[in-house]
């Protein structure tokens, strides 16, 4: 136990994302309501974003905006920048994209859900299935 504990503590963000991912996946698979499934889907996506953001984190580093560059931008070459001082920006960039993708998907999925509701007057999957077998 004493060996496992440091691993868990050292990487607890990675564990957290796994927990959230499972929550999302669970909701997507076992929930009956289409909108609940959508929520699960979003939790699933955010958990992956959390994972990426965790990759980029560096201890004792600051946000990825170069200090002192503001104002004296005429002489950028004189600036000495240590990579270890700033958090890795690349995962953030990737995740900006992922967030936008997820909201786009969410919008389209909600539009579909509204359309389905218009047709079947319900959002419960089993009720829709019943309506389909009736017809």
């Amino acid at each position: 136990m004493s060996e496992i504990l440091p691993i868990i503590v050292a990487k607890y963000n990675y564990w957290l994302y796994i927990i959230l991912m499972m929550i999302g996946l669970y909701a997507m698979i076992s929930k009956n309501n289409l909108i609940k499934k959508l929520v699960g889907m979003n939790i699933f996506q955010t958990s992956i974003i959390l994972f990426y953001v965790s990759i980029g984190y560096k201890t004792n580093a600051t946000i990825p905006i170069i200090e002192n560059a503001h104002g004296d931008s005429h002489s950028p070459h004189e600036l000495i920048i240590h990579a270890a001082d700033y958090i890795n920006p690349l995962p953030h960039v990737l995740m900006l994209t992922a967030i936008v993708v997820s909201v786009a998907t969410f919008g389209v999925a909600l539009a579909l859900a509204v359309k389905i509701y218009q047709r079947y007057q319900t959002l419960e999957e089993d009720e829709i299935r019943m309506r389909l077998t009736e017809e």
Partner: protein
Amino acid sequence: MINTNYPAILVLSPLLAALMCSIFSWCAKKLCYPTAIISLGISLYASIEVLMQVMDTGTIQYRMAGWAPPMGIEYRIDLLNAIVLLLVISIALINLVASYQSVNQEIGKKSNTFYAIYLLFVTGLVGITATGDLFNLYVLLEITSLTSYAQIAMGDKDRGPLASLNYVFIGVIGASFYLLGVGYIYIMTGSLNMVDVASLLPSLHGSSAVLVAFIFCMLGIWIKMALFPLHVWLPNAYTYAPTVVSRILAPLMTKVMVYVMIRLMITVFGFEYLFEKLNLAEAVVWLATIAILAGAIMAMAQKDLKKMLTYIIVCEIGYMVGGAWLGNELGMTGAILHIVNDALMTFALFLALGNIVYKLKSVHFDNLKGLFGKMPWTMAGFVLGAFSIIGIPPTCGFFSKWYLILGAFEKGAYHFAGALIISSLLCAVLFFRIFEIGFFNNEHDEHNTITMSEAPVSMLIPLGLVSLSLIITGLYSSSIVNKIILPFLQ
């Protein structure tokens, strides 16, 4: 200057045209369709030029925004991309020409905006095929997915949105798994460029994270391509989509995903890792075997022509996955050749299907009676496509099967070879059942002579072209293999 920019033009031409279509749909509706056609024409030209260049000078690298590869995004076009690009763009163009009437009939008022989304979908497919960056691939994957959700939902009024929403759920899981896999690769190597990753991975071969990264990438791609146990979304989604959409989804979507799988296998992870370090190959070939049989058997149970064809797609995916995972040159050749061939033959079948839908509205088996009399030309195309699926020479389906079976023999995977043969037989049964229905079954109205009511010429000519191309690609498959696939594999 243009010479060096062809890789960008490939993608930009449909993207810009999509934007223009969207603008025109508000102010100059008549311009939408011509814009779409012209843009795909330009793209097609570019793809031919790219293919020529690649064949002459080898791999083309194009730096987006001018940054060198591991920093920036790179388009990397080798022989495999080039041929798939040509395939994607030409099918998209032919489909657009062939489906003009069908779009007007099924989508009506919104058809101008529809062209925009169609072009975006093509942009996504082209981008996926051309890109050399793992994350860029994800973004483009999402573009294709999002556009296909919208396109599918525009089909059948009752079932379309539901099928589409199910596709959203599963599609998002697939894409997220892929993203997660890329994340694992990134955390271990720090790079996103495919070639760069490939050069960094060998030192990490023993790592469990790399293994899991690989598994997640594959799972994601398999979900997207509908490999057998993960196929549940495909039949409904493709069946309830509008004709024009299922005509492009069916031949291209799954095939492009197979391309991505092969790209990851060959370029990123490499054969050495897959077949020497991992012990997955045999299991995957077994999975493919089951996929082939299950797809064919499930197709037997269908009473609707379109749905039957969608299950055949599930079956065909098994061919390509199995072939790629045989782990020898012949199998891989067969898999790549089958990407081309299967796209063409599925396209021919769906073109014919679209013509039938255009005239008859429904393709339930009961409605197909006497079809050979009603639409002889359409059915001629359909028959050729069907023969190709069954694998009757000299149609192209036979030749890819040839390589696949030889590959299976070389590997000793006799179960896979057996599945290929059995699926041929099952497909023969499936299609001859359709032929029988179309050819006979005018017992009820023997006195009524069947009047011909053929689809419009603009829908027939593309069908004719594509079905002839089945034979031509079949006969020239050796040049495809010798000039494109084998040099690529070496």
